């Protein structure tokens, strides 16, 4: 392999611009030469790209294709055009009356509030001396290590509907309630509990990224800022910390979005049923599973997944505009 292979990436590889513009054959030849020169690079990335294509790229396209069909997993998919999408947005009462409002509420609390909370926590922890910092960071991060399932037993025991439930027992003892409440099965409480549990376990990779970002900000910048008239800690955060760690903030934001969508299954785990009681905790994920695996309307379920996918990407793009690299940076 030639020397150019490892040269700095910033120097564009297309240095071999054809001398004669428009000479397509020549250009193609050069391109092929270029590709041949980097054959080892392609060999290196190939194994991951194969798995990646098989389990991420192909499923996304299959999902899009399926969403335009009627498919019950037994017969071959029948073309249905925009039917699934039309039904979803005009006839699916559960989707329109429960799934969308629930998801909106859930995402609003778990997403932005969880994100701000992660930043505040990380900033506070960063103010501690080094040896202590590690333990507090661990305490915040540990819940996300549980990965959902492991904790179902805890939540179910905590929120048990009779007086042996810990929360019920506590509330009874202190006189907040007269009778035990069926917490996870009651439609008034389920969504709230889901939000608390999700925020609790949301301090994962994104939180660590923010913490590392804050710790990495150059100390001398703060001193320079003080000379330039920054007087309070809040100003410091706003004018120095946040701008300096925008890339980490963006990563954390993306992780927050993905995490929020992932935790969609929590309602089913807590209440032990899908659909959740009175659809009170029904989120996108539950709706997809309900149609995909219970009613076996796979085409329709795919359409819901695609709507969710588009929403995610749009949201991430929006955050990109807010936090992403600008032209002049």
């Amino acid at each position, binding site marked *: 392999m030639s020397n150019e292979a490892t040269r700095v990436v910033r120097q564009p590889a297309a240095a071999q611009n054809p001398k004669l513009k428009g000479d397509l054959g020549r250009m193609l030849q050069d391109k092929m030469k270029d590709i041949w020169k980097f054959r080892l690079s392609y060999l290196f990335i190939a194994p991951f*790209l194969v798995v990646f294509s098989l*389990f991420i790229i192909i499923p996304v396209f299959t999902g899009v294709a399926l969403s335009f069909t009627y498919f019950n997993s037994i017969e071959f998919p029948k073309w249905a055009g925009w039917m699934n999408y039309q039904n979803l947005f005009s006839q699916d009462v559960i989707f329109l009356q429960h799934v969308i409002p629930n998801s909106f509420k859930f995402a609003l609390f778990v997403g932005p509030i969880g994100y701000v909370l992660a930043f505040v926590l990380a900033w506070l922890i960063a103010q501690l001396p080094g040896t202590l910092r590690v333990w507090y960071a661990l305490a915040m991060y540990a819940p996300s290590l549980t990965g959902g399932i492991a904790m179902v037993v805890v939540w179910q025991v905590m929120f048990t509907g009779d007086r*042996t439930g810990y929360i019920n027992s506590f509330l009874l003892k202190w006189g907040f309630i007269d009778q035990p409440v069926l917490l996870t099965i009651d439609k008034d409480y389920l969504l709230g509990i889901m939000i608390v549990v999700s925020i609790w376990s949301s301090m994962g990779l994104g939180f660590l990224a923010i913490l*590392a970002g804050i710790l990495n900000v150059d100390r001398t910048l703060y001193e320079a800022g003080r000379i330039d008239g920054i007087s309070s800690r809040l100003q410091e955060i706003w004018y120095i910390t946040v701008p300096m760690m925008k890339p980490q903030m963006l990563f954390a934001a993306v992780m927050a*979005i*993905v995490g929020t*969508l992932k935790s969609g299954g929590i309602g089913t785990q807590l209440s032990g049923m899908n659909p959740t009681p009175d659809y009170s905790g029904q989120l996108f994920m539950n709706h997809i599973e309900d149609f995909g695996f219970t009613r076996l309307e796979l085409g329709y379920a795919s359409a819901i997944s695609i709507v969710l996918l588009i929403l995610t990407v749009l949201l991430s793009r929006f955050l990109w505009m807010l936090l992403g690299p600008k032209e002049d940076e």
Partner: protein
Amino acid sequence: MAVLKKMRQSLARSWSLYRSDFRSLDKTQIVLLVLLTLLAVFMVLPLVFIFNHAFKPLHELFLFPPTFFVREPTMQNFTDLLHATQDTFLPVTRFIFNSIVVTLLSTVGMVILGALCAYPLAKHPFPGRKIVFGVILLSIMISVETMGIPRYIVVKSLGIMNTYWGHVLPILALPVGVFLLKQFMDQVPDELLEAAKLDGASEWQLLVRIILPIVTPAMATITILSFQTAWSNSETSALFMQDDAMKTLPFYVESLTSNLANTVARQGVAAAASLIIFMPNLIIFLLSQRKVIQTMAHSGIK
């Protein structure tokens, strides 16, 4: 003996570090410490609870008012777990064995695939590099949980249902891992690679001898990441395994807990199983938390 002495020395050193750190705290930091301690206790409470619950004997599980801490710790729940069989008469050790195999294969696989893929992405200006990285970046935003159905179709048509491949391959498609590694490898100075190249090092040697030793923090991080993903994954068992003998521990725990809502039977067993799932994650993170935080500093999307 020498090892023991070294350990004692390092313990003493870190203890004196703690003491000096505590003394140097000012007033705001003390207030902060109290606040954060309260919060940390709140965060860790459920974890402490599961520890205690797993060791409670049967009569303490049913106690009213319910107790938080265990009074007479017992291993009963763990032995029950070992003897508990489902309708299929499979011992839980089978699920644990499956989990260990799947986790080992996925972690090793992810580390190899990730390093191989991240190196050219960071250091080789090959045609199409931007597009490949762009797609990987975009795919971080996609949550694979939404793609259960198409993934099921892929696994089925590959003919790897009810095999370990059906567990491992889907887990290997972890774009976050490649992304983190690539961002970290960007930091390796190009001069170093050029110099090694002049000495006649091959691309493979460059990766193994120069890049990998420098990016150990990032390697540690993706090891943990793929370990956690694989170890607590129940999705592949639920979707791609019809044969109960191929299912993994998290799936088993899920089936144990799925109808717990208002019963107490098997609660202790479920808690014990949950603890088995949680502990390895915690231990691995404890061992490498410094490296993880170091890696996350380079996690920014630039």
